[in-house]
């Protein structure tokens, strides 16, 4: 059974990663999870300077999901390099550094610092950050900016470059195409969906920033549809993220066309979800005659008799 997958020159031992912001820097739960069994760990988003993050409350539960606005609290790229990377040496898994920034320049600088680190195997770029120049509008909703960021970063690294797309746009495939055109090795999706919840006793938002990012099983159907749209638009690998809590969920993403998947919110419930997902996917492939998980990718059989024009909701 072949479980591994290559992006650029980097071989991930399996197709299951843990998602940014849901697994710390990889060293938080050594006694609960053997991270060497994961395809890779995507770090919490790293910015140039350390960030305190947003005020409390930062999270709230919703129906089959949760909202968060952590505010990208992180220790900053320098401290990550000095304090965290050395600890991660002992784990046999790939480290994908996720980068967040508030200017194109900052993206470049953070990437350059990390690119020099052997222990960093690749990059995932979080473009769902407010662009300070544009008064806080998200980079990720402007296809020109996403192109520009991809282009600039591509010039600065030969390691796998993955752009993480936001679902909060009309046509996510446009963004994926732009990333492909500028040389990204892969796109990952989805980041969280903008959402909100209200405390009706206090008549205040349930999280301090009013709106936040929705994640968890509630958004799985949305993520699958966005992945479906994207795999029909680009040739580079698509990494599926959103609401995966079981191996069955991951199999859905592979069938639709994701080449890899990431586990996010589920880590909060069962930190070892990635491992049980990897095992379950493997067994499913065995039982269904796939000798490589890759053969499962994009096996979806759709009803060809239904045209788009007819498919009114």
């Amino acid at each position, binding site marked *: 059974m072949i479980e591994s997958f290559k992006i650029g020159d980097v071989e991930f031992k399996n197709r299951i990663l843990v998602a940014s*912001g*849901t*697994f*710390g820097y990889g060293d*938080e*739960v050594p*006694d*609960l999870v053997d991270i060497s069994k994961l395809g890779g760990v995507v770090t*919490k988003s790293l910015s140039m300077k350390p960030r*305190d*993050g947003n*005020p*409390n*409350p*930062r*999270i*709230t*539960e919703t129906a*089959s*999901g*949760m909202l*968060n606005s*952590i505010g990208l*609290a992180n220790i900053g790229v320098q401290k990550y390099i000095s304090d965290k990377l050395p600890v991660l040496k002992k784990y046999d898994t790939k480290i994908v550094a996720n980068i967040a920034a508030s200017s194109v320049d900052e993206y470049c600088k953070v990437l350059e610092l990390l690119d020099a680190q052997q222990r960093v195997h690749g990059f995932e770029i979080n473009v769902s950050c407010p662009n300070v120049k544009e008064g806080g509008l998200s980079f990720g909703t402007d296809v020109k900016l996403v192109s520009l960021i991809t282009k600039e970063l591509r010039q600065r690294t030969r390691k796998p470059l993955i752009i993480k797309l936001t679902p909060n746009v009309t046509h996510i495939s446009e963004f994926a195409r732009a990333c492909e055109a500028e040389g990204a090795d892969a796109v990952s999706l989805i980041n969280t969906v903008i959402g909100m919840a209200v405390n009706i006793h206090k008549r205040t938002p349930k999280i301090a920033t009013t709106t936040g990012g929705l994640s*968890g*099983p509630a958004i799985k159907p949305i993520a699958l549809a966005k992945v479906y749209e994207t795999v029909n638009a680009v040739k580079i690998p698509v990494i599926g993220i959103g609401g995966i809590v079981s191996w069955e969920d991951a199999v859905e993403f592979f069938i639709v066309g994701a080449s890899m998947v990431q586990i996010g*919110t589920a*880590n*909060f*419930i*069962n*930190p*070892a979800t990635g491992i049980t997902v990897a095992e379950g996917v493997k067994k499913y492939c065995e039982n269904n005659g796939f000798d490589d998980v890759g053969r499962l990718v994009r096996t979806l059989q759709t009803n060809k008799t239904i045209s788009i024009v007819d498919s009114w909701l």
Partner: protein
Amino acid sequence: MKQEIVPIHSLEFLSKEILELTFISEYLASTAKPGQFINIRVGDNFPLLRRPFSIFNVDENRVSIVFNVIGTGTKVLARKQKGETIDVLGPCGNDFLSFVDDSFDTAVFVAGGIGVAPFRFLTKKLYNNKQIVTFLGGRHKEQIIASGLQNIKIATDDGSQGFKGTVLDLIKDDFSKNMYKRPRFFLCGPTRMMKAVSEFATGIGADCCASMECDMACGIGLCQGCNIEMNGGDKKYRLVCKEGTIFETKNLKF
């Protein structure tokens, strides 16, 4: 820290409102310390996130929590049956005993409502040379769980048990009458109550620590959702689940 599926030993009402859920776990029984909590997956699919509960009691291989039914998670918990299993993750957070040093003679426990949870276990494990005085506050008598505590003083809002008024009023009243040698306060309960009692403690020059509550997504430091604002110091925020739940109240920006 471990994630375990453990069998339920019993589920009993301690008062009309408060339930004690006991389960069997050699591991937790032997490792958990007073003030720590466990994170319970109350249902298979619903609610989504685990719910944190203070460790109430440890007896041989049995560990228990106490709770009152307020929302979705506790509603599901309240319907569990002996023989069923639950998924627990813990022990989480720091503990009172490692947190405090020896520089006090009287441990003043102050609990609001279900905040009484950690004090029974703490009473059992506290250094022998300490005096204990325990103040319990609640809206009414069904919220008062006094078993296993020492030197108990009770305040209820409606006067249905003990002093009629807030637990702070009771403490003030009591401290005006009694002298406690080198008191140190240990608080657990609603934030507003803890803030008020902490101000009183500071006022009389006593050290005061509190087990803070906060919505948690993970309980183990992964999500960064449980931040609490510090009063100066190197970091603006700390994580309640990992760097707490117990803090010196003087370090908190309440």
